[in-house]
């Protein structure tokens, strides 16, 4: 026991010496963004005699730099051929036991630490970017979207793992993250039922992006429940310049309308100003706001003068027939007067459950957003 202590003591002294000789600092990159290109190799360990002690400090682990030149490491490719573990897109001429270096893409596999990872199993950034280009190009294939989505979902996850293991935070990597987030947003929009794993993945991505990208941060504002953190708490940490950026100002304005219940401006502003990606994120909230509008009109409207549905459908930017369905979904009564359909102001009966209704989404009538949706092809 005492011996071990004595050793520690000596270590401490050597530590101090090595730091005062300042050779330590010269090996540290000053700007974290340049990390990607600097390899901290064993040389570093000789300068600092007790490198092992620092294992808890993520910045002191020497960066791994991948050397795998292919989208999939050779070994994994051979193994998966042998096990017939090939996705549809990876099969050479449809053969489930044969693939090639231009088809196979590294699968996601959970790893606990980077200690046992070989550099030859990890792809360098340039290869990762090519891989991402290849994957996102698959979206143009005629295959069923769900199938392509599952494949890209898994393989981009492995790209992110490779990026993380190499501790890459360069602009190139951020751009790649952004494209992956866009993919997730759009697929979440197109596959609303694909459920929670996607949502969680999106959250994790957002959290990683928060330090890096203004664009993506603005998207995340509308994602509720930031891992149990209230928005106010999150706002405390966001740098002020980012809060004042154009995208963030838009997101905050939409958020304000949402929180105040200003359904008119919420829907008008979304229709008029949102980018397609922003719209994809806002869409789930549109149903909620429309339902709120119906309850407000129903609650505060004058009973002898029912509210005309035509006007309401213009305000909420939906087809009148859809609005009628939404009223029914929300447990509200409509009727016909001399001119057209109207929403009756009746007290909600106890039997109907207002929360039940608005999960179904009715299209937002907007030529602009339709056009944007059609234009969107590149990720």
């Amino acid at each position, binding site marked *: 026991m005492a011996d071990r202590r004595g050793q520690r003591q000596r270590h401490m002294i050597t530590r101090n010496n090595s730091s005062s000789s300042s050779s330590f600092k010269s090996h540290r990159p000053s700007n974290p963004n340049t990390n990607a290109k600097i390899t901290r190799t064993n040389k570093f360990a000789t300068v600092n005699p007790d490198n092992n002690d620092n294992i808890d400090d993520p910045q002191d682990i020497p960066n791994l730099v991948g050397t795998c030149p292919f989208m999939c490491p050779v070994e994994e490719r051979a193994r998966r051929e042998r096990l017939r573990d090939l996705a549809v897109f990876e099969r050479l001429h449809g053969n489930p036991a044969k693939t090639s270096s231009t088809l196979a893409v590294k699968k996601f596999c959970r790893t606990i630490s980077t200690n046992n990872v070989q550099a030859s199993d990890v792809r360098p950034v340039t290869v990762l970017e090519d891989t991402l280009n290849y994957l996102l190009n698959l979206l143009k294939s005629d295959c069923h979207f769900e199938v392509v989505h599952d494949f890209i979902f898994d393989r981009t996850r492995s790209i992110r793992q490779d990026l993380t293991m190499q501790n890459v935070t360069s602009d190139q990597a951020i751009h790649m993250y952004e494209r992956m987030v866009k993919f997730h947003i759009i697929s979440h929009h197109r596959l609303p039922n694909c459920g929670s794993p996607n949502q969680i993945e999106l959250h994790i991505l957002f959290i990683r992006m928060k330090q890096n990208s203004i664009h993506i941060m603005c998207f995340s504002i509308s994602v509720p429940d930031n891992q149990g953190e209230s928005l106010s708490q999150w706002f405390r940490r966001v740098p002020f310049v980012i809060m004042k950026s154009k995208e963030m100002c838009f997101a905050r304005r939409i958020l304000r309308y949402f*929180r*105040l219940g200003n359904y*008119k401006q919420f829907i008008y502003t979304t229709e008029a100003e949102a980018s397609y990606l922003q719209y994809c994120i806002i869409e789930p909230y549109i149903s909620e706001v429309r339902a709120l*509008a119906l309850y407000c009109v129903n609650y505060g409207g004058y009973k002898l003068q029912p509210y005309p549905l035509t006007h309401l459908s213009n305000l909420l930017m939906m087809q009148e027939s859809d609005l009628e369905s939404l009223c029914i979904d929300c447990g509200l009564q409509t009727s016909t007067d001399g001119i057209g359909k109207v929403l009756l102001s009746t007290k909600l009966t106890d039997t109907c459950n207002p929360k039940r209704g608005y999960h179904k989404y009715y299209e937002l009538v907007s030529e602009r957003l339709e056009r944007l949706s059609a234009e969107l092809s590149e990720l």
Partner: protein
Amino acid sequence: MAGLQDANRIIRQSEKCSQYADILVPVFRALQSYRLRNLVESYLALKKLPTLLMENYSAFIQEFRNWESAWALEALCVIAYEIRILAERADKELASIGKTPEKLKGAGSFLMKVFGVLAGKGPKRVGALYVTCQLFKIYFKLGTVHLCRSVIRSIETARIFEFEEFPVRDKFTYMYYTGRLEVCNENFPAADHKLSYALTHCSPLKEANIRMILKYLIPVKLSIGILPWNLLLDKYNLTEYNNVVLALKRGDLRFLRHALEEHEDRFLRSGVYLVLEKLELQVYQRLIKKIYIIQKQKDPNKAHQIKFEVIVKALKWFEMDMDVDEVECIVSILIYKNLMKGYFAHE
């Protein structure tokens, strides 16, 4: 160094003291490294410092767990305080040389262990709230307030110990932090209760503390429709709220937005921005009330009917451009949220 090694040897040799070696040796080592830090200002010594102290404290906590009485509680509280302060300093130093500041996080998980020792039954429990407050300070600083939840649950659900029996100092700090959490969750009645509790238990001489409480209590009170005296704002130098209050008094929406923009950074940092932004509804409510009062003076019989166009016009005076549809939307929201009694007719 020589002196330190001597001390180690003496402690180990002395039979009486040997059982305290696990505690005392690290204390000396910690003192030594602390001194080194002052002399050499070396990063490595600093980095090791909290680790060493941690070791020392761990041994102490271990002993404390075994003691049946709480005689050393005061010492434990000192440790809880010290470890937080040291970790904060270490992180500042780490950040200044471009390293990841992670010591405070470590201190947080360490204090969680301390909390575990105290939170059980028996006389030690009286110290649990002190450690809780130290944890709050760490979590608020790190922005990991969601971690507060489990501690709060433990304090509020355990019926073994009455909350009122904790020391006043701790109760008031605890109420301040949990009140702030309620502000962020926009649970205003709870926030009002907790912050008011903190305010009434705060010594009137501690102006800085009163100011900190008011910084959160004022937005809460504004949200439930209670405006503070200007005198109060001036006395505690909370002038950033002056224009917000004035905007409410005038029913002037543009002035409210301007007041928020003026101190936007400050409000965002303290976490009250979203709460203040929501005051917009209160502003509309007050504006409509003013219109009603003016109408009543002119013609008491027709005062209860307000035309949407009149509201549009009033907003225009304040340079707010809104159409009838939006005003109708706002009025319907006010009625729905019970900020106004009445109904509206769409013509």
